């Protein structure tokens, strides 16, 4: 049989066992790896569809944060005179908005992932994890495009990134994991309770003001700094800004708390998601 001969990454293991849900940890990373092409296609679909009917397409990925940057610079910078850690205000806001917008868009998309794909979920099997994962990954392209504006911006203000730039991927990874972890929770809950869809915009808005996007975390009193770090995006955004510009202090204790919170949210999200996964086709 040809299907058996063609070395096929999606081909099933020789024996597939179907059993009732067992235990609280069933996440199968090997299976997820075998479905990596499907994740790729989901990412590809999300990106294609996102820009298919827009007039200026991917330029939105720069315009969105750039326009927000101007608004923030006007109101928070010029009118409210919030401190910007000695950075030029445009660089300060843009470097905070980039990771934030990646996070908030990914979180919103991941939340909707299960419900939006219910037509597929109720018809075909694949690891459901592929859906929130691909939502979070497809946001990275917008993020990368948005980063392009950083080059002229930093060149104009003559900010040269130092060796701290090497740590940038670490902060990005934290943002991805945080968006995925929270997205796992919210997408699973959204499948069960559609109320979540109305809650998320408020959550994102509240979260924005709880994160050092429009202000620097230095305005938070030092003794509450660790508490502030419980919001992992605080550590991520501060860290992102620091690694990019090399100005200010590296985020210390705050980032350790952030990493711990990210790991806890991600792990519990996986458990909750896979608990929902076995019955989602019945309830969605």
């Amino acid at each position, binding site marked *: 049989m040809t299907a058996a001969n063609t070395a096929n990454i999606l081909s099933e293991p020789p024996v597939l066992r*179907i059993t009732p849900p067992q235990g609280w940890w069933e996440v199968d990373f090997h299976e997820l790896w075998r479905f990596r092409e499907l994740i790729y296609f989901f990412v590809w679909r999300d990106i294609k569809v996102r820009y298919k009917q827009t007039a200026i397409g991917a330029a939105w990925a720069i315009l969105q944060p750039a326009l927000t940057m101007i608004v923030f610079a006007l109101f928070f910078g010029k009118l409210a005179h919030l401190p910007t850690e000695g950075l030029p205000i445009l660089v300060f806001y843009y470097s905070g908005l980039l990771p934030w917008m990646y996070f908030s868009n990914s979180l919103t998309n991941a939340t909707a992932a299960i419900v939006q794909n219910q037509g597929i979920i109720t018809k075909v099997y694949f690891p459901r994890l592929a859906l929130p994962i691909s939502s979070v990954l497809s946001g990275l392209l917008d993020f990368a495009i948005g980063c392009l504006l950083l080059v002229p911006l930093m060149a104009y203000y003559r900010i040269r990134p130092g060796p701290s730039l090497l740590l940038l991927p670490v902060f990005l990874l934290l943002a991805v994991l945080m968006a995925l972890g929270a997205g796992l929770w919210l997408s699973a809950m959204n499948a069960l309770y559609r109320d979540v869809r109305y809650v998320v915009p408020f959550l994102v808005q509240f979260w924005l003001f709880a994160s050092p996007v429009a202000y620097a975390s230095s305005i938070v009193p030092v003794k509450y700094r660790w508490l502030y770090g419980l919001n992992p995006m605080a550590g991520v955004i501060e860290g992102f800004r620091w690694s990019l510009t090399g100005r200010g202090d590296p985020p210390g204790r705050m980032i350790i708390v952030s990493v711990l919170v990210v790991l806890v949210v991600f792990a519990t999200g996986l458990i909750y998601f896979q608990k929902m996964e076995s019955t989602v086709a019945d*309830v969605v």
Partner: protein
Amino acid sequence: MSDTVIRVEGIGKRYRVGGRESYRALRDVLSNAFRSNGKRSCRDFIWAVRDVSFEVKQGEVVGLIGRNGAGKSTLLKLLARITRPTVGHAELHGRIASLLEVGTGFHPELTGRENIFLSGAILGMSKAEIVRKFDEIVAFSEVERFIDTPFKHYSSGMGMRLAFAVAAHLEPEILLVDEVLSVGDARFQKKCLGKIEEVSRGGRTILFVSHSAAAITRLCSRCILLNSGRVEKDGPAHEVISVYLREVMVTSAFREWNGADAPGDSVVRLRAVRARKVDGTILDTFDIRQPIGIDVVFDVLEGGRDLTPNIHVFNQEGINVFVAIDQDPSWRRRARPAGRYTSTAWIPGNLLSEGYVTVGAAVTTMAPQNVRVYERDAVAFQVIDSTEGNSARGDYAGHLPGVFRPMLRWETTYEPKPAEWHSLGETVNGEKVLP
């Protein structure tokens, strides 16, 4: 090595009543938490599938039949891993693909080309595989010209063809098919059936869910009848289909009435109606080439009247295909004395189209005209078309519409170079036709 590819042992799926209807709102969960005090009665649950066990061997084509809600689709969903069982387990050997609905994963904003890749990947094909089969898929779908047009501009027929073309090019060892026949037009349904037949000849294992007894008898060697989530019968397709028709459609190829509950009046009572072969064997399934005898057995209780039995034949769409009235010269226009009569009407072979046929039987007095007894669904049977090439379908395997399927006599005349070819300037085998 065992050639069992599907082994299902005691599998069961329990649903909470209402749980499937719609999504829950947080409000309901909160209010329930106060109302129910955590107790939940067992009446809140239903078993869609319960205690189902069976094995399927390599290359078998197994039909799953049963009335609505019998658990057929749930069982298929369990095997397709779309939902998890509550109890029991199953083992599947080999790559699985499910055709629970064609067009899964199609996105309206993407072009035909893009959708082939997306849907192919969702249905389980690798990118390399899709690239390899791409041209074949496009050719099969007959939408070459629109392949770079967004899917939302496709007509529903084109969309369906493209969707099915993708699904048809999966090469699983185990194929799960659900109600493909319920989507699309008749031509498309038959195309699906034809493709499934082709796949099954390739030695693949197929589990096929359908309401259509005709489709199952044609495709499957074996059939499993589900009733209220349990296996009621598992065996050769024609036997299981007969049970299904008898129990679900409440008709079979043989009906008998005893005593006073027999349909009729004080003059005539129907005793039995049978569908049989020439040699007298009662059958549920007739080869299209076979003559079918319909026996109408009736008792005349009051002699002295002119009585004429007649039969009314309906196809599975409920169309009254024809009515046949007894023409036997020995009893025509003759007063019948009391006694038991058996009248047999012979439906010739190669007349009825394939499918599920019901026959109503009646006895009528002609002068004055009066229907003494009429039993609408007296008997039912299947007519199946042969694939051997000597029925009216010849070598054609696709969909043949029509209520009749007669074997007509065909004649051919042949003329190598008709006179008007010259004046029209036709070319034959590349040469101009000369006078």
